[in-house]
């Protein structure tokens, strides 16, 4: 079978994480994605860890690399009229345009939906931003940490006796693109059936709040406000992350959950604590919740002189949920992820080879393929202008020498 999205042409004006991973998914499944950036104002992800061989540099970020693998890359100075004209030519070529600039920027370049749709009536364009393109706060710019603050996630990660810690990184950057992709793919199908394109405006905050839908219903119905509870859970007790023997001078931890009273009793026996297992006063989650501090101390005492892998193995053999708190090394050596071929090694023009994450879902008949490493600055300038847009050699050289392709 041919690739699911073969022939789909995508023009990608996105940066950091929430925008680029949309086009990344489309590229994995066969779309041709041209990513436009500029080396004059280097995009944030290129400055972010981890770096190839631990060496900082704008061509070395593994975050940039995993968000943009499989795409063609060109550098265009969109501040110039010639750069904007080039972008409009690319938009005429494209089926889909994706962008993640601060709201208003694409209008200033006359690259917004209303400008582009004039020449391209069935265009599908998607903008992703923190707050959305409309509404009283639409002008609020920001990264996903701002999105996490305004969607309620910053407040609900942390220990109850300390200020909130917030999620790891710009949390809504991970959520927004999933909703963008679903909407975009649905819009493509709608266009296939009806010939009608559309404009899609995704706000990271709104995607984030969707993942708290039960809590939003709860607040509306009975005024409940979510509080941070460390690693505890509303349903399961015990439910935590416990210290193990250090390895290579690094602290190690294991996550353990008892989903039922029976699992709790098995856990207590595995810990060599039949007294806890047989204590009828601990027979329900609600009863255990009343002495959760004490139970957590008992578990931590048991895990403290073990390796996390051993705890995982022993408890999983009993059917009790447990897993090493996976470091990057654990993740990269995980036999399950290896079974799924989740990490993909690619040739790289500067580094020889690099590694990115593979598609997040396996399709049995048209599997995703990561065709190439993320582009270096301007790697495909000549190919895109000459081969895809059909510009003459003279025109390409003229633009290059005029400093437009930077």
């Amino acid at each position, binding site marked *: 079978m041919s690739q699911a999205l073969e022939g789909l042409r995508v023009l990608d004006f996105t940066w950091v994480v929430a925008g680029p991973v949309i086009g990344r998914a489309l590229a994995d499944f066969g779309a041709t994605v041209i990513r436009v950036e500029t080396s004059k104002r280097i995009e944030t992800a290129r*400055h972010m*860890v981890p770096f190839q061989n631990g060496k900082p540099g704008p061509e070395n970020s593994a975050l940039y690399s995993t968000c943009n693998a499989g795409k063609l890359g060109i550098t265009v100075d969109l501040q110039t009229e010639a750069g904007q004209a080039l972008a409009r030519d690319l938009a005429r070529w494209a089926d889909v345009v994706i962008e993640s600039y601060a709201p208003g920027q694409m209008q200033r370049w006359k690259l917004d939906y209303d400008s582009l749709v004039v020449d391209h009536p069935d265009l599908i364009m998607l903008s992703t931003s923190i707050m959305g393109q409309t509404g009283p706060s639409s002008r609020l*710019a920001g990264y996903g940490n701002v999105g996490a603050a305004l969607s309620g996630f910053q*407040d609900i990660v942390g220990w109850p006796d300390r200020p909130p810690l917030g999620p790891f990184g710009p949390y809504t950057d991970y959520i927004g693109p999933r909703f963008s992709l679903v909407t975009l*793919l649905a819009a493509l199908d709608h266009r296939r059936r009806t010939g009608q394109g559309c404009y899609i405006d995704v706000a990271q905050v709104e995607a984030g709040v969707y993942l708290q839908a039960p809590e*939003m219903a709860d607040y509306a119905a009975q005024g409940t406000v979510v509080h941070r509870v460390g690693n505890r859970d509303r349903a399961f007790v015990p439910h935590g992350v416990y210290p193990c023997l250090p390895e290579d001078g690094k602290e190690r931890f294991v996550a353990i959950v008892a989903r039922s009273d029976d699992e709790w009793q098995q856990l207590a026996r595995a810990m060599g604590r039949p007294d806890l297992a047989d204590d009828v006063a601990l027979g329900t989650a609600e009863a255990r919740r009343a002495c959760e501090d004490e139970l957590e101390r008992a578990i931590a005492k048991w895990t403290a002189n073990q390796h996390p892998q051993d705890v995982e193995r022993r408890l999983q053999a009993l*059917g009790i949920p447990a897993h090493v708190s996976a470091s990057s090394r654990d993740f990269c050596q995980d036999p399950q992820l290896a079974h799924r071929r989740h990490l993909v090694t690619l040739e790289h023009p500067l580094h020889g080879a690099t590694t990115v994450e593979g598609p997040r879902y396996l399709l049995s008949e*048209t599997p995703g393929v990561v065709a190439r490493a993320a582009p270096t600055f301007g790697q495909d300038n000549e190919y895109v202008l000459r081969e895809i847009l059909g510009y003459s050699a003279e025109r390409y050289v003229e633009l290059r020498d005029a400093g437009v392709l930077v």
Partner: protein
Amino acid sequence: MMGLLSPYRVVDLTDERGLLAGRLLADLGADVVQVEAPGGSSARRCPPFLAAGTPQQESLFWDAYAANKRGIMADLDQPDGQQLVRQLAGRADFLFESATPGVMAARGLDWPDLRALNPSLIYVSITAFGRSGPKSGYADSDLIVWAAGGPLNPHRDGDRPPLRISLPQAYLQASADAAGGALIAHHARVRSGLGQHVDVSAQASLGLASLGQVLAHAVGDEHPEFEPAPRRMDQSGSGSGTDPTQKKWRCQDGLIEFHVGVGPAAGGFTSAFFKWLADEGEPVQEFVELDWRRVPVLMEEGSCTEADLQRARAAVASFLSRKTKAEVLQAAMERKLLCVPIYDTADVAHSAQLAARNYWVQLGEGSRQRRLPGRFAQVSIDGFAFRRPAPRVGEHTAEVLQEWLGGARERPAGPAGQHAEVPA
């Protein structure tokens, strides 16, 4: 109101591990039929609850993520129920399931079984670790997947163990991926006429939520954390490499999120922030004049020191302690600052922005009415369809059988006749 996916039918066999996927398709207009066992889905036992501890207790998790679907009853562990699912799958475009690997095969309802009946069916599995492989049989829960998938381990508050988000999120992320994977498979079907199996692993889904950290070992970066200064200062605008406790500030009525950013991408926002302080009369001229874009370089040269940054941070703390969340949000918009209030549940629910964008939907009437997140995107054409609250057990069995199967089958002798007796 039709929605972008109005022509399509979905059989949804998921429990709490996959419930959200079908809701996304339903919101976009698909006809999604949620199948439950006679005792009701296990997702109905997931918190939070309305009227907890009373006979009227109801799961708001169910109400939120089964909303917009129709409900029918079938016991997948009985031949009747299995036969009903086979018939529905014969008329469906998509099927979602989130059973522990092996369970669907034992029921005769796995992908190879249903593919034989309907070669164009897209069969989507949402599991903790994937449908096959050495950990596919692992006992699972949100925290276990979070631990295996990468975002847990690097997230520490000082001396305490790694920390998850206080609400389960792993399967929600995986379920959103499942909806995306299903639609990619749909585009393949448009070409070939054939369905396929989509195998979603929640563990693999979560790598993204580590912000690339899971790749550190593979690319040879054994210390993927930012160091204080100067070699690897965190120059990202989000401050993603900075201790999160250094980005939270007390204000009069809560907390503010603000990263004192440095370097070419983020320094300009810090300059704008100190300009705000100066305009309001704070004695911070030296920090207005400091080129925050060049701070990493200045620190390397020694002309800017950690002590200077400490004084800047003290000025930030003092200033923000006298502001309200609303004042900070206003200034952030007017001055383009990366500085926002940290919203709690109530702030989100009352957000003027979300209201202006018509984000919320009220589904159901009377005691069944729920206020839920709705439009997860603004689409310039008729994109969404919000039709109904989450179903009661078996609420739509009769009408679904009639519409999907017509007169082609008898009502099942077992479960489907009982639906009126089962409380919602």
